[in-house]
């Protein structure tokens, strides 16, 4: 049933003139004809709008492969005929190769982000960290320490101050640092917190948490852990880590939509606590510790014993073990380093005093 010719508006895609035309269906029912134009029905596509707005599928075309020309039909018999007869009126065509294009772009974006996060950022943050003057690094470390203290202690002061304990701690500090030619002025302290952990902040601050003192069986074990942390300090590992987290926080902020980056500094303290240094940094800190323990005559036996015991406990892993699933090997390595103990670090009375430093 052939619909009668109808009045319509044609925009030719070349000028903005409104062109009234009379549209008729071709005798073979395969095309619309108007004003010298022939639009095959199979190529008709509907455009959003009132009435029936038609465009033609073409090879080149715009964002969608449509010709810019438009034909406006009022709702009526002809529009109904087109809706019934045009097979792909509602089809949203894609250009050839679109799938490959999407896959390519997604892969490219993922690769670029990976490159930024894992190659570019670490390099540039290490570079910046290495250029930080030492006195600023120390000031920065003190601020980070303040953050961690208020984070752990919920705004209660945590540093333990029992006089005999502090004296024992100072003795241990002298034994580990005096005459060793360290770059940083190491500052030791104990936080009153049950977590089994010890960590280093930028600029020479090293903290033992009470949980570690409770667990350790001798002063040599504690000294071993401290030597490892001093290794991190001397290698500037905490400072690098802080810079890296600051950089990636920028990206995290982007993903979360917080472009002001105000959360960065607040997050740093948390990062220090659960510090995950690279395997190489841990290995270097171990090597530093073995060497230091040997030179100071403390010996590596204490550290080896500590590694073994903690590894067997299967509890929340402190930083010192975090990136080393294979602690048994480290104990062996410590024994192989074979610094024999020349003299005990602390007397038995001093060791007991240190364990009671938090009162």
């Amino acid at each position, binding site marked *: 049933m052939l619909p009668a010719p109808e009045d319509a*508006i044609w*925009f*030719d*895609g*070349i*000028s*903005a*003139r*409104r062109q009234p035309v009379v549209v008729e269906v071709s005798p073979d029912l395969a095309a619309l004809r108007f004003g010298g134009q022939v639009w095959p029905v199979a190529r008709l596509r509907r*455009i*959003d*709008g*009132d009435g029936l*707005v038609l465009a033609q599928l073409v090879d080149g075309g*715009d*964002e*969608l492969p*449509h010709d*810019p*020309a*438009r034909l*406006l039909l009022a709702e009526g018999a002809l529009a109904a005929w087109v809706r019934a007869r045009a097979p792909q009126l509602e089809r949203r065509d894609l250009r050839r190769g*679109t799938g490959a*294009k*999407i896959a390519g*772009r*997604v892969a*490219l*974006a993922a690769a*670029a*982000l990976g490159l*930024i996060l894992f190659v*570019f*950022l670490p390099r*540039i*943050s290490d570079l*910046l*960290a290495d*250029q*930080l003057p030492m006195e*600023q690094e120390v*000031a*920065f470390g*003190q601020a980070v320490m303040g953050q961690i203290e208020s984070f752990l202690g919920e705004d209660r002061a945590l540093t333990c101050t029992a006089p005999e304990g502090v004296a024992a701690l100072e003795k241990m500090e002298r034994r580990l640092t005096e005459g060793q030619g360290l770059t940083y002025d190491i500052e030791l302290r104990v936080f009153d917190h049950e977590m089994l952990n010890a960590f280093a902040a930028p600029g020479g601050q090293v903290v033992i948490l009470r949980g570690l003192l409770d667990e350790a069986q001798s002063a040599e074990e504690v000294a071993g852990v401290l030597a490892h942390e001093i290794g991190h300090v001397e290698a500037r590992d905490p400072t690098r880590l802080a*810079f890296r987290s*600051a*950089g*990636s*926080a*920028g*990206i995290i*902020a*982007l993903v979360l*939509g917080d*472009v*002001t*980056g*105000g959360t*960065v*500094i607040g997050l740093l303290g948390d990062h220090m606590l659960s510090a995950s240094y690279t395997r190489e940094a841990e290995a270097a800190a171990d090597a530093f510790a073995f060497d230091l323990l040997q030179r100071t005559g403390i010996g590596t036996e204490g550290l080896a014993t500590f590694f073994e015991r903690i590894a067997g406990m299967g509890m929340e892993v402190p930083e010192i073990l975090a990136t080393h699933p294979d602690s048994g090997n480290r104990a062996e390595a410590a024994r192989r380093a074979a610094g024999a103990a020349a003299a005990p670090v602390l007397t038995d009375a001093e060791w007991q005093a240190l364990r009671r430093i938090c009162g």
Partner: protein
Amino acid sequence: MQPPARSDLWAEYRGDAAKLFPLALGVGVLGLITLGIYRFWGKARIRRHVWGKLRVGDDALEFTGTGLEMFLGFLMAVVMLAVYLAVVQLILFSVGIRFVFDPQNEMEELAQAVSILLSFVAVLPLMIFAAYRSRRYKLARTRFRGIRFGMEKAASGYVVRALGYLVLTVLTLGLLWPLMTFRLEAYMTGRTWYGGARFRQGGSWTGLYPAYLHVIWGMVLIGLAVLVGIGGSPGVATFLVVAGTIWGLIGLVVYRVRAFAYLMSHKEMEGGLGFWATPRVGAVIWTYVKGALIVALLGGIASGVIFAPVASLAVGIEEASELVQLEFAVLGVVAYLLLLTVFGALSLVFISQPILAHFVNSVMVTGAEALDSVRQRVADGGADAEGLADALDMGGAF
């Protein structure tokens, strides 16, 4: 206002809530299911719908942009932004820790505030850049009578000017805001084309001051409050501050509406086509208040519908296994996101759309016979679509 001549055409927005709401809700839910990926396609669908309802005379606009190009543009922008933000963040951090961690406490707080402000300022040029690009993309994908609109590639120049005028505005405590509004709009209008015909912004920046008057009154009151406060009457000062703030805020709405009217009425297109816009402040405010009430009412009902079943499941949750508790928590989050989607759709339909309708319906196009001689322009590839604006999450309602 002169009566419409033969060659005058009214702009008209014919959208209605019943058609837009199912669409907005549908694309919102799809966006939720696809973890946000669908939002680009959703935006394209909503724009196609809304553009198709906007008519000048008998002819509707057409939006030809696609979700795909917006998605790809977003991907590109995220990568660029990642580099930029990471580097800026690092540099700010490495400069920042030299004063942020100053021993003195008050200094520390001040410096911290400054460094946060700085990291915002670092993003500001990008946001301005993105705003220009976004407008250019929308114009490049808008058709009227089959002819493309377009805007020149000039976003960098726009950023420089916008930052300059922004500094001027801040330094003059906002007094030169109309200068910024006018010059920036003129910059964009002068680079806008319909086919081969160029637009031009007429009028002058001083012409915006009548529109800005109420903001100035608000500022004067606050200034007075400072004087009175120094003079030692805190009660009067507080009253003046409150009054000045309210006056200024309403003044801002007045300014937005009247500035639109002034700028629109002084735009013209080559060939003698012009505009005449008469939006009414009262109508805009009332539309907003009415819309907000409807959204609150329907949103309240929706939250009941969504959360009632969730709450009924919560009975006895404490005794349930951990897995069940976890499932319940996920269900709660999903319900919450669904409610946000419903609110988004409602405010689009009952606030944004009616306000758009009011502004559009207030515009008359004069000298429309100029349209007949406009010729087509070449397509604008616009490789990044409006990806930067999407990545910075700064899209408007439409």
